[in-house]
């Protein structure tokens, strides 16, 4: 007996394999796509991917666990990623970080209990002369003040899900 959600998952992954090709080089793009849509990569998903690409599940896990954006706990409906780099430090990143933590009631690397928002550090996002900078999902925001940060959190809370997901 196969659970219905497993069947759905298989159809989805088969679609990706069709689109991207059955070669090993499709592995990371497939995992990225699934992570983006489902906000997590669970072991069942990795097993199905392994089977469809004809590689060992351990290989899939080994790759997924290597890349920061693929592994980790399930993410919230929105992900706020504050640039942790030094130019943003100069510009007052700490105050923004505090405001985010305060407003969300969580620390970095955590997700709110309602599954709405995940807060993470980002490696330099290249907005060094415009700090503090952050990404709300895929959108870049610069010169963020603690007040902006609170407004961003409120907007994420109010919104159902990522527009692009």
């Amino acid at each position, binding site marked *: 007996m196969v659970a219905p959600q497993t069947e759905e998952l298989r159809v989805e992954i088969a679609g990706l394999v069709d689109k991207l090709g059955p070669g090993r080089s499709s592995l*990371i793009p497939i*995992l990225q796509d699934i992570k983006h849509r489902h906000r997590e990569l669970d072991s069942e998903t990795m097993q199905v991917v392994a089977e469809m690409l004809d590689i060992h599940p351990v290989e899939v896990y080994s790759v997924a666990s290597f890349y920061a954006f693929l592994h980790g706990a399930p993410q919230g409906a929105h992900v706020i990623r504050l640039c942790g780099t030094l*130019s943003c430090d100069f510009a007052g990143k700490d105050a923004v970080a505090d405001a985010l933590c305060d407003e969300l009631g969580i620390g970095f690397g955590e997700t709110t209990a309602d599954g709405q928002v995940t807060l993470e550090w980002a*490696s*330099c996002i290249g*907005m*060094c002369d*415009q700090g503090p900078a952050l990404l709300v999902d895929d959108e*870049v925001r610069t010169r963020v003040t603690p007040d902006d940060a609170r407004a961003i959190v409120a907007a994420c809370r109010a919104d159902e899900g990522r527009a692009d997901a």
Partner: protein
Amino acid sequence: MAASKKTGSARQARIAKALKAAFRRELATRGDDAVKIRVCAGTTCNASGRAAVSCALAAELERRGLTDKVQVVLTGCHGLCQEGPIVVIHPRGVFYPRLKAKDIAEIVETSVVGDEVVERLLYTDPASDEKIALEKDVPFYKGQTRLVRAINGSIDPTSIDDYLARGGYGALATVLAADEPEAVIDEVERSGLRGRGGAGFPTGKKWRFCRQNPGEKHYVICNGDEGDPGAFMDRAVLEDNPHSLLEGMLIAAFAIGGDEGYIYVRHEYPLAVARLRNAMDQARERGLLGADILGSGFSFDIRINQGAGAFVCGESTALTASIEGRRGMPRGKHIRTVAHGLWGQPTNLNNVETYANVPWIVTHGADAFRAIGTETSKGTKIFSLTGKVRNTGLVEVPMGATLRDVIFGIGGGLREGRTFKAVQLGGPSGGCLPADLLDEPIDFESLTAAGAMMGSGGMVVVDDTTCMVDFAKFFLKFTAEESCGKCVPCRIGTTRMLEILERIAAGEGTVKDVERLEQLADDVIEGSLCQLGGSAPNPVLTTLRYFRDEVMEHVVHMRCPAKVCRPLIRYTIDTEACTGCHVCFGACPVQAISGERKEPHVIDQKLCIKCDTCRQVCKYDAVPVETGILAVAEGRQQ
């Protein structure tokens, strides 16, 4: 001979005709002598309210019935990102920075309908405090030599016709018409172009090795992983002029004999990926990418791979492993990518900026390129200038320009009341250079000799409020976290080095620790498999070389001269200066401040978390910060 010449010229004619057919003039933006308004739509200007400005502009032109007469172009980044949103009005080139939607009606009235300028909205040069009306007179632009970024601020990066109108893909047509791949390699080699991704390997030589190596297939890869903290030059090329990269890769593929290419872009650059995808679709549609390009028989297509948050994937062998669907771990250098790269085949891997130089070299010739730069480093280099300088943004200068030219000339020097302390070049693989090296020319050799490196081109300027121990700690923490873990010297060595630095920053370091740090640095450099570990100690080594006194102050006197390292400082209240205004009392997040209104306050050292809030809110400069053994001892005792 005559026959071959004839087929040669038939080929030339065919390709020239195909290029002409690919261009649809009616879709291109008008030239700079026409009446038009350029609105910067780079990531930064977008983030600082460009959309509202565009809307207001469209509405105002519509209201005045000027929509057909005045063209509005959304261009790539102009470079002076801190002044966004930027709008430039042609034909004169009047420059309006930091525009707001409410100012639009006024500038249209004055500078579009009329031929005047709105004084109030002009750019003020922070160095001289003078108002500047025209874009070409802004000192930030005047000091630059723009070769790669020449047209980035004037074309619409989403329009292939804008690129074609400026002679784009002409270099490709030239090499396809001549049909002599080796001659292209000769030309690039003669130009002296060296890789812009960090190591500075001669590009022509790399291409030749790759071409000569036998294989079933030759691959062409572009490295757009740009992970150095403080660097965003490649993002700018990808976003502002994606076709220049595609053209460079096409020429490389033709020269090397490759028909398949990859562009590896980091996950953090969503706009760059969107612009690239759009550019590739357009190029395919016009017969400039894909099969039988411009009817020449040459075929080449490109795929985009997105990174997944691993800095080490910028290293060439880790990058190819990642494209193959593996963990991005580097391998030993005895196997060369040009011989056994992607899927074991000969592979040419270059940086974004390297490829973007190629069309210019083909169009203007190797001699013109050689004429710019120094003996060993030719052409220009783009830097992202950030940190405590007045003007920050993207800067393109000839190789051999001095650090002073860039930081004080173009960058306008340090902000009011601050003094230059150091500039970090090349991010976590580079080093920090002190004031006495400001007159060093910027080229590959000079920077390496000074202990820094060109790296990808990040330039972070710091002033007297930055602690060099803290600064080095930042970069080392970055590399320690990003170490892929494959080899021991890098994985464990960088962690141990970081622990020592943390001890020093906490006032717990010893003189022996400093020696150990130097010893370990050498071991990590020697023993690491790739240049991540091989260059990770550079920031620490340059700190010890140029700022040893400051490090020793931490060790011997428990002093942090810049008053940054928290364990070594103490916040106090100057009872003379304190007016008892009670502002700090309310601002302190841990209620460590007590005192009656209008009476001097005191800070309870046991409760103080050194968050700096009281000092920032104090209007009377009454919160001095102390550092040194006494301050530390007192803090610890309590």
